[in-house]
């Protein structure tokens, strides 16, 4: 996972509420067995018209926002399907951070696992940052994760973040490897847990044969 320390880039506004993962990554891009090619799928039905031509009314297709590294988003961003393809695609498009008020739970975790920083700002600061992102003369930001600070040319925004998530993003940790380093603790827990609940092991796979 690519570490997140200090990242500079362009911010683009996507103010709609409840932008779901079907919109972020439409179903026709979900047929792979790897993570390749998802850059083309991100916001596909917004970026392209029915003939496959670039839709110039969509913000990420406009000069001044085309190389955005940050998206300033509306509430409940990433709701719906668990598809991690949405986050893989955003990363492949070059998005490093999201700035919003609320994110759907599964999506938020998927961001955390892929080095995509999902920043939660106080709702009363959102109008200001939307105004910056909407103005192509002022939409260059710098995000310093260690300092928990977004800096613009004429102002800054402090943000809170869970300390464990922060450390993991800065280090770019492989969480599976970290957890497996403590596999003895999982084994010990599992032994006691299953011993206290003998019905769990006894019922394994029971009734898996069809009744008709």
């Amino acid at each position, binding site marked *: 996972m690519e570490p997140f320390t200090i990242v500079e880039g362009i911010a683009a506004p996507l103010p709609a509420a409840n932008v779901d993962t079907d919109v972020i990554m439409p179903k026709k891009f979900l047929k792979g067995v790897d993570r390749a090619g998802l850059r083309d799928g991100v916001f596909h*039905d917004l970026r392209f018209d*029915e003939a496959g031509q670039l839709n110039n009314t969509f913000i990420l297709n406009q000069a001044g926002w085309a190389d955005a590294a940050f998206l300033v988003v509306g509430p409940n961003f990433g*709701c719906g399907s668990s598809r991690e393809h949405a986050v893989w695609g955003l990363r492949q498009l070059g998005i490093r951070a999201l700035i919003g008020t*609320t994110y759907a739970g599964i999506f938020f975790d998927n961001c955390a696992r892929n080095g995509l920083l999902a920043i939660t700002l106080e709702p009363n600061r959102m109008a200001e940052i939307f105004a910056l992102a909407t103005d192509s003369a002022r939409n260059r930001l710098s995000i310093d994760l260690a300092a928990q600070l977004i800096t613009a040319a004429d102002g800054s925004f402090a943000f809170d973040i869970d300390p464990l998530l922060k450390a993991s993003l800065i280090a770019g940790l492989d969480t599976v490897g970290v957890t497996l380093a403590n596999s003895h603790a*999982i084994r010990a827990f599992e032994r006691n847990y299953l011993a206290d609940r003998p019905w769990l092991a006894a*019922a394994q796979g029971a009734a898996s044969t*069809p009744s008709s």
Partner: protein
Amino acid sequence: MQRSRTLYDKVVDAHCVSSFDDEGRQVLLYVDRTVLNEYTSPQAFSGLREAGRAVWRPDAALGVVDHVNPTAPLRVREMADAGGQRQTSYFAENCRDFGIELFDVLHPMQGIEHVVMPELGRVMPGMVVAAGDSHTTTYGAFGALGFGIGTSDIEHYLATQTVIYRRLKSMRVEVDGTLQSGATPKDVVMSLIREIGAAGATGYAIEFCGTAIEAMSVEGRMTICNMAVECGARGALIAPDNKVFDYLEPRVGLDHDLWCRAVAHWRTLKSDPDADWDRRVEIPAASIEPMVTWGTSPDQALPISGVVPDPADETDLARRRDLERSLTYMGLQPGTRLEDVAIDRAFIGSCTNARIEDLRAAAAIVKGRHVAGGVRAMVVPGSSAVKRQAEREGLDRIFIEAGFEWRQSGCSMCLAMNDDVLAPGERCASSTNRNFEGRQGSGGRTHLMSPVMVAAAALCGRLADSRQFVPLS
């Protein structure tokens, strides 16, 4: 004395391997079981292969093909769609190489993962089930904590039997009283989503309680817990009771002594009377009417007697723009009576509403009547076992004689990853869970409702109140 705890606290506490902080807010959570599908799992298995890692407990996982398979009446192993074929063949390879049981498309117990797991008794009270599908919340109907995870966390689960988990806030949703005739569990959860909004339970686990929940069947409870994710809940629980135990007893196949020990433990799985809640919501059962969505978010719903809202009435500018966009996408004019909205398609299916009770209720309305001209109507049973049961009861004949297509099981047009897709502009009455833009096909327009409401809409050719249809026999 130990502090008072919610059912959610008790289930999480019992699964904490270790804590990452002093307060136990973020923990390494032991997961009892998972179910895998062909489209969210491949990259997780590839990650294991690349790192040379094994699956911690292969017998705790079940693989089911459900998202990409066709539902045409004749089943074949090979998929015409190259992507679907690649995913199902890699899924089979992964299940074989890692020792995981697989229900492929020809298996007699194939079905939608969240229908299959419960019908096999694989979900028991007090369990934690994390799976690569957001509707894993379904399992709360058994007093199990089910929640969706992404592919990275599937890989973490497969390698370690755990997930890194942040504790949620608690919300108690109380539904007291008696549901009106014609109001279904789907209408209960749609009313909740409308009331609290599509993000109303983001960051929360919900516990449903109250006399209307107690009176509800286990299948009805699954519908409610399933769709709780549409208001953001990443966990929905109902305290297990005798209905749950009666449902499970023939399915888990335990000997008498173990069964009694299990039930004695399961009876302790309820919130303490003085437990603290971060939020409480009450929905009087008698106030709930048959619901339909009119927009592109599940909270954009109204009783069927309503009219399409007018964005001009919305004072918040951002919300007004969202409303205008929804109505433009849906092709609806403000002030239109919902009962005047004509449909092209009707779909009964999905992990929300395609169990045997759903099919029985819809068939009771359909029997002796016929689908309106110009409407294409489909029934996709939730599982192959549900399909066989329905056929034993003659429900397939009722649907077919009324003009419905009777198809094989799968997720089908709930998310249209297979060939069951709306054409651009087509309008569908659907017993599914999401009315997002493009969900059932690019440009397709989805109205969510209960299976009996879909049946009524199919018969009328427009959105309709199911209460006007008295069963003919």
